[in-house]
């Protein structure tokens, strides 16, 4: 493919950057309306309880205070993105502590805070289920009795003959890994305003997917879709996290707005945000792998349990990606995988950047390193033996073709850039250099004192992954772009895909600029509004770039064709002449420079040429057999390799992240600034997942409700991140651009875990590998929910 571009691949300043550096950018909470009221949630301190009655008598006589309950929900009170199992207001029971029973609405936020305490909820606590491993026991508490089981979904995958594979193996290794619950931690807490309109409602909010929100608001209010207008405010981070929660908050605001006929704002504090919003699934992963003495993996048996928490949310799709990618990018003849997600009373889990991949990658990449160590080869060698090549067949039986299968290319590049093999051999420990603690006698004996010279141990580790682009067999995958050219050569465009803060609009502007041969400044991206354009599916699954550039390029090509006709006619050129548009200028191959873009547009409009177009892009067909997990799961894949270099203080357990080298094949880089930003940001989130982030709970009650206890990486936590792009060729999307957002995050924790193994000689099986995990080999939790000195 021709990768000589004029705009694509350069560094382009974001179209929204000016507003963002001057404080002008309007986020949801920055909107105010006349007569706007605020809403305060009513919750109870219970993990699982039957609501007997709700007594509002103490506040009912208050002037201008409204009570909003399930009775005000004119449509369906039970909603959800896949299963309709989540109440907008929990009038019968709560199944997790974030649940909202009712809402009180009024003018003064402080007064509402005070009045909320006067609402008396009479409830009967029910037995709780917080251990996902007990969810499928026959006598287990049922979270949603109408579902008859706590099983949300089961994805089986069967390829080859697993028993034959094990019998052909020289060695068999069996290990169990666990990963933790984590929070998206977007810096902007949730906020939404519902505004009554003549015969409908308008919603402005920190909404990830306006079309999904419109659907849920429609379900709740019983208003038809066209009477609901959803506008996305500037979104202060999402990472997959402002979908279900925002749908429900929007529905609550809409219900209250319809009742009061006033604009209603819901804004969450950080505590409410962490309490109620969904999180990343904790996984328990059992891997059994058989391999030969030459390092060839013959069989892999995988059993994974995901804690879905109290509601279904996106669990079926999250775990589907897991079943497709659970072996990692390795060609294995015999695979037998079961992935299950179950209900519990824990905080519910759903979409989060990575979406079911960081968990199996931690397991499978730890496992690959263990095999290498047992065989006396290096981690890169074991991956070279088993890694996908062009034409390899995946665990789902899909033959990898029509794109560069770059797993070994990114691996070799990362290994070369970091001098990996030599460092790995140099740092390698034959046995653990960490103290073994005896918990009964917590005093260190003199012979266990650490020699200060040995306190700091260096390590290096790597991880690789392949990742299916876009939705795959999850569902219909298509996008639209409306584009028009004004008389002055200004291009306006709109897509049904929403910006999530990552810079999608700028990426799509660049794509249009490249196709039309103009500079990005000439293109204006219009506000995302559900009433103006057709649904293009959600901005999820790193599909914004691959799917969005497809429809934008299509629209721009339609317009360009028409302009070429005008140019040929206007300048009396031969039919076989070739017209090029470059940097606002128009060239003929035969006659050279003809004119500029603006003049051609003027000419076209004078000749009444139609300069509006609708671009469309549909993903190629994918197939899936849900009974045996076989099929072409995704139409294309991306590949990545990250190398972590760390120093471990073996006395305190602190892990210093010296350098992360991230080599990714995103197909084509569209905006270099944005692509680099994706790597820096994704690696940093991945590092937090690896070594410190964790939401813990006591019987479902979350301990870490704000950033004083929930620690995310700061500017001081990673010394250096080195991004590197290998741009593979692909026939799909616009200009071969694929996905980058999620691949950057999914590898980091696994690479760090392998580096810690290399530094300490000890394997860690449970994320996060925080100070306690490292030094004591277990997690330490506070004994109660009290914060600090409270």
């Amino acid at each position, binding site marked *: 493919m021709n990768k000589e571009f004029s705009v694509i691949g350069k560094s382009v300043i*974001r179209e929204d*950057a000016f507003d*963002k550096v001057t404080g002008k950018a309007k986020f949801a909470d920055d909107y105010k309306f006349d007569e706007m009221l605020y809403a305060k949630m009513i919750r109870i301190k219970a993990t699982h309880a039957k609501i007997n009655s709700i007594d509002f008598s103490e506040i009912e006589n208050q002037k201008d205070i409204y009570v909003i309950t399930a009775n005000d929900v004119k449509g369906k009170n039970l909603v959800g993105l896949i299963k309709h199992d989540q109440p907008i207001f929990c009038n019968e029971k709560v199944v997790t502590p974030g649940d909202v029973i009712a809402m009180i609405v009024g003018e003064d936020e402080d007064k509402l805070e005070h009045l909320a305490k006067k609402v008396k909820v009479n409830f009967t606590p029910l037995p709780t289920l917080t251990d996902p491993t007990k969810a499928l026991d026959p006598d287990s508490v049922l979270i949603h009795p109408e579902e008859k089981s706590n099983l949300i979904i089961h994805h089986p995958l069967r390829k080859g003959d697993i028993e034959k594979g094990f019998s052909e193996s020289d060695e068999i290794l069996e290990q169990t890994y666990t990963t933790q619950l984590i929070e998206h931690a977007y810096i902007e807490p949730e906020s939404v305003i519902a505004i009554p309109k003549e015969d409908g409602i308008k919603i402005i909010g920190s909404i990830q997917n306006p079309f999904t929100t419109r659907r849920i608001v429609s379900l709740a209010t019983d208003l038809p879709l066209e009477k609901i207008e959803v506008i996305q405010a500037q979104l202060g981070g999402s990472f997959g996290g402002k979908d279900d929660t925002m749908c429900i908050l929007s529905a609550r605001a809409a219900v209250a707005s319809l009742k009061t006929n006033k604009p209603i704002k819901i804004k969450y504090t950080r505590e409410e945000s962490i309490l109620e919003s969904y999180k990343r699934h904790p996984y328990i992963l059992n891997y059994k792998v058989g391999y030969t003495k030459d390092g060839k993996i013959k069989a892999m048996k995988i059993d994974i349990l995901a804690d879905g928490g109290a509601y279904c949310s996106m669990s079926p799709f999250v775990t589907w990606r897991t079943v497709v990618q659970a072996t990692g990018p390795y060609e294995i003849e015999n695979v037998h995988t079961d992935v299950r997600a179950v209900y519990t009373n824990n905080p519910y889990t759903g979409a989060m950047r990575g979406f079911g991949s960081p968990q199996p990658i931690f397991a499978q990449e730890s496992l690959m390193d263990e095999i290498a160590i047992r065989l006396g080869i290096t981690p890169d060698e074991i991956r070279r033996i088993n890694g996908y090549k062009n034409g390899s067949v995946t665990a789902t039986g899909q033959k990898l073709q029509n794109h560069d299968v770059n797993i070994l290319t990114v691996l070799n590049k990362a290994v070369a850039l970091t001098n990996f093999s030599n460092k790995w051999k140099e740092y390698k420990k034959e046995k653990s250099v960490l103290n073994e603690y005896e918990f009964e006698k917590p005093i260190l004996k003199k012979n266990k004192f650490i020699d200060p010279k040995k306190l700091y141990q260096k390590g290096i580790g790597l991880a690789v992954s392949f990742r299916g682009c876009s939705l795959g067999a999850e569902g219909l995958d298509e996008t639209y772009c409306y584009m028009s050219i004004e008389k002055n050569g200004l291009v306006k465009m709109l897509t049904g895909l929403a910006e999530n*803060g990552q*810079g999608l609009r700028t990426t799509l502007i660049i794509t249009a600029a490249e196709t039309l041969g103009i500079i990005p400044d000439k293109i204006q991206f219009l506000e995302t509004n559900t009433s103006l354009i057709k649904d293009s599916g959600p901005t999820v699954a790193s599909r914004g770039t691959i799917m969005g550039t497809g429809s934008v390029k299509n629209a721009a090509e339609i317009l360009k064709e028409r302009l070429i006709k005008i140019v040929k006619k206007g300048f009396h050129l031969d039919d076989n002449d070739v017209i090029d548009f470059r940097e606002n200028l128009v060239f003929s191959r035969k006659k050279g420079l003809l004119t500029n873009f603006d003049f051609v547009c003027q000419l076209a409009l004078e000749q009444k040429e139609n300069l509006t177009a609708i671009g469309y892009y549909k993903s190629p067909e994918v197939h899936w057999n849900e009974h045996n997990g076989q099929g072409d799961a995704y139409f294309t894949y991306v590949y990545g390799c990250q190398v972590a270099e760390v120093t471990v203080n073996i006395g305190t357990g602190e892990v210093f992240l010296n350098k992360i080298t991230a080599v990714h094949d995103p197909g084509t880089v569209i905006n270099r600034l944005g692509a680099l*930003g994706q790597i820096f940001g994704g690696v940093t989130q991945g590092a937090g997942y690896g070594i410190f982030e964790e939401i813990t709970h006591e019987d479902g009650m979350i301990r870490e409700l704000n950033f004083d206890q929930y620690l995310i990486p700061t500017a001081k936590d990673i010394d250096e*991140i080195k991004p590197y792009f290998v741009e593979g060729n692909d026939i799909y999307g616009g200009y071969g651009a694929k996905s980058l957002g999620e691949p950057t995050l999914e590898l980091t924790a696994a690479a760090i875990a392998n580096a810690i193994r290399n530094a300490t000689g000890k394997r860690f099986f449970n994320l996060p590998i925080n100070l306690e995990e490292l030094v004591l080999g277990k997690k330490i939790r506070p004994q109660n929910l009290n914060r600090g000195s409270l």
Partner: protein
Amino acid sequence: MKIKFYLNKKEIEIEVDPTIRLIDLLREKLNLTGTKEGCSIGECGACTVIVDGKAINSCLMLAYQVDGCNVITIEGISEDGKLHPLQENFLKTGAIQCGFCTPGMIMSAYALLLENPNPTEEEIKDAIAGNLCRCTGYKQIIDAIEVSAKELKG
């Protein structure tokens, strides 16, 4: 109570409830919504403004405490419609993604450069260690501050 202070170089006099926070005064009463609220407990730094040359969390300061002070917010650092070098370099280095932490981040950097025109990378990291960003991984932000320091020195 009535307070008088300089806000973005203009003197203002205003009646404030003694219990409201500086961030409420800025966002709710004065409609300066560039200053953001992310955690309300002084951990995330999104609400950072400058009071008498120091970066402070406006969620942790009461409004009346700025009586007689010189307060600068994100809305007050560009002059005559020209962006401050920090703003300009945040654009150019790609230091912005969602942009929610950006105002606070720029104000922390602004305070740093007031005090130390020649910061090392470590000093820059220290200055923004109290500003959380979930999108960028900080690297391009640190670059923007480094370049700005050089430009401001001339």
